[in-house]
């Protein structure tokens, strides 16, 4: 048996020599200095949602940089899991010479931070998360965008549709129930779904909403199951904060309406999907990489907004949307640009029948703590980019929780 070991070892070494020689035939690096950008993503573009949206933003940024003469190369690690694999992938990219490494999933951050300690000269960006900005490492960053604003606008389209059905007598006012497929019961989801609901209620006063938390980000089976459960509970419209298109399909099959996330789902569900809200990451990627190459500082935390075009809604599915929807949305968008519309306006909602207070709305687990409740509204995404609104608004029924 020991002979086996020796012989195999010799064979292995021999093969190493042969193949290593083969490897050296690889073309030498181009003369001009290339800035390598790393990108660690969950799933891949096939999710048609979360990572698809990130990749599109990244590709747009890279193209723009290249057009401006910046020599950049993108290296992507797909289908990364929230485990030691994530740390390995970050190390892998750092070893390959990446100068910036973006991580696109919330659960990646703890592992990314571990790798960041080992590679102090590489910049690590934990997107949608919030620990990098407050830790001791100057090479860790965070970014997120005010998606609740885009969800508010998308909510208007949903509310208009339900109000139309009420006006036409198809449903009674109290039957205007929306269903929301959420991933987990934490600030990112709560903040977004509250924004969506408030947007809908601003045009359809009788609307209520039921929420199921699936307890996973990207499981098509369970998201569909949750959507179907909501439809069986009497929901007339489904929206989602989860990564796949299966809720849209479920809505299409059941003949109810749908509002998507991350990507235009009207192709998937032409008779159901009204529009989607999404984050446009291209500006952030573009500026971060450009600043880095130009030797400029980057903010340790970055929050995109509607006014800056970092969050938006996709084109309205005019074939099924209620008349006047576009105008109603445009009004809200203009107000966002003017800075006059605040999603979490304390006069528009109550929590347990009371006006919201900082205690009932601020996530006590957020990395940055402080008072966000003043001037008559809750200042979401201002103290840190990652959401911290966790108020349970009256009118939204949580059917379960998933922590």
């Amino acid at each position, binding site marked *: 048996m020991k002979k*086996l070991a020796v012989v195999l070892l010799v064979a292995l070494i021999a093969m190493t020599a042969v193949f290593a020689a083969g490897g050296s035939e690889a073309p030498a690096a181009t003369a001009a200095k290339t800035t390598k950008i790393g990108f660690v993503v969950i799933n891949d573009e096939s999710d048609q949602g979360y990572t698809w949206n990130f990749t599109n933003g990244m590709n747009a940024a890279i193209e723009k940089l290249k057009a401006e003469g910046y020599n950049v190369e993108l290296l992507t690690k797909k289908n990364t899991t929230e485990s030691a694999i994530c740390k390995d992938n970050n190390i892998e990219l750092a070893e390959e010479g990446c100068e910036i490494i973006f991580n696109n999933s919330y659960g990646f951050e703890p592992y990314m931070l571990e790798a960041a300690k080992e590679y102090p000269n590489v910049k690590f960006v934990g997107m949608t998360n919030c620990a990098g900005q407050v830790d001791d490492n100057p090479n860790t960053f965070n970014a997120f965008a005010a998606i609740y604003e885009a969800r508010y606008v998308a909510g208007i389209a949903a509310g208009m549709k339900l109000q139309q059905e009420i006006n036409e007598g198809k449903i009674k006012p109290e039957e205007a129930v929306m269903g929301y497929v959420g991933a987990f019961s934490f600030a990112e989801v709560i903040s977004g779904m509250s924004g969506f609901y408030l947007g809908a209620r601003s045009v359809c006063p009788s609307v209520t909403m039921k929420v199921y938390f699936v307890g996973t980000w990207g499981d098509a089976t369970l998201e569909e199951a949750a959507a179907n459960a909501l439809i069986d509970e009497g929901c007339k419209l489904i929206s989602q904060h989860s990564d796949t298109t299966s809720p849209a399909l479920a809505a299409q099959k059941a003949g109810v309406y749908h509002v998507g996330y991350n990507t235009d789902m009207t192709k998937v569900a032409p008779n159901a999907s009204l529009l989607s809200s999404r984050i446009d990451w291209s500006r952030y990627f573009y500026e971060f990489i450009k600043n880095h190459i130009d030797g400029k500082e980057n903010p340790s935390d970055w929050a995109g907004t509607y006014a800056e075009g970092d969050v938006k809604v996709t084109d309205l599915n005019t074939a099924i949307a209620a008349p006047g929807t576009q105008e109603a949305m445009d009004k809200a968008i203009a107000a966002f640009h003017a800075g006059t519309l605040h999603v979490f306006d304390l006069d528009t909602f109550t929590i347990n029948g009371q006006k919201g207070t900082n205690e009932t709305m601020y996530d006590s687990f957020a990395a940055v703590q402080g008072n966000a409740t003043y001037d008559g509204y809750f200042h979401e995404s201002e103290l840190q980019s990652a959401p911290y609104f966790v108020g349970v608004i009256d009118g939204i029924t949580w059917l379960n929780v998933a922590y």
Partner: protein
Amino acid sequence: MKEKNKTPLIRLAKRVKTDMMSPRKVWAIRIGSIVFAFILGMIPIIMAGQNPFQSYGIIISGALSKPGYIRQTVKRAIPLLGVALAIAPCFKMKFWNIGAEGQITMGAIFASAIAIWFQNSLPAFPLLMLMMLAGILGGAIWAFIPGFFKAKYNTNETLFTLMMNYIAIGIVRWLQGGPWEGRPGTQIIPMFSDKARLPNVFGIYCGWIIVLVLVVVVHIYMNYTKHGYEVAVIGDSENTARYAGMNVGWIMMRTMLLSGSICGIVGWMLVSGANGTLNADVAGGVGFTAITVAWLSQLNSFAMIIIASMLAIIGKGSATLQTKLGVPASVADIVSGILLFCMLGCEFFINYKLIFRKKSDKEVHA
């Protein structure tokens, strides 16, 4: 054969002690099968539009050509080797324990419990030792349950241990999203403090030393102890063992306890070394891959080092291949799969001989 005209053209015979193949021939076949596997492995690479020689070059250099690469490769090999060692005694006994995945996970859960409860109150060394003992306990319990039912009621252990995997992983998911979760809704158990983390030796957590020690321990246990002998006898024939007065049931349970304990140690190393915390992917398929490592090494502890390293090299190298040339990293699974098939298949040509019928009815040995 009763009737001569019914003698088939080719027939098989198991090689017996007297006409074993020469060691040189045996190794020629084994190495030949590996080379053959790598040739077949070129197919997916060509399909991905890349030069297979250059790709293999990148796989090897991406795994071994820089200290940073080697560290990552060794990190992959540690749990593979550890679990292969754990499985060896069971498989020797023909007890098909495919529950290593769950036993690792259970060990990881128990070790994490100690870390979470005591990391603020205990100094580093006793804390780590306590975590290890807890890990051993966790793995052992998870292995003992199917072992007990097999010994007592002859419950099919393959299927039982398989199911236990998913229960253990489910429990982690619950802990991750419940009692041990940091920020609610994040599914993240906070990283352990440095006290609960295994120290690095040469830039890799010291688990590699532990598994190398285990290699020697398991080798001695299997080859030079009474326990090891009993395991081998049961593997050959349960009935012989019974006639010889062995308590087969107890030996099965005992061996499973040992196997689970080693898996538990690996689980402890994974949370304390590689991951720094507990998550549902902590075992990440190692429990399954390690079974093939153990089997292909013919349950020989030292051979496991080679096989585990080979799979780790393919895995790490393919990751680099994906980064550099965009060949999907899943090519690692394909090449590993082909390699396993070829190595599994080649044993046949070592253990059996083909006998061709001659016209004269005289048998010719090939």
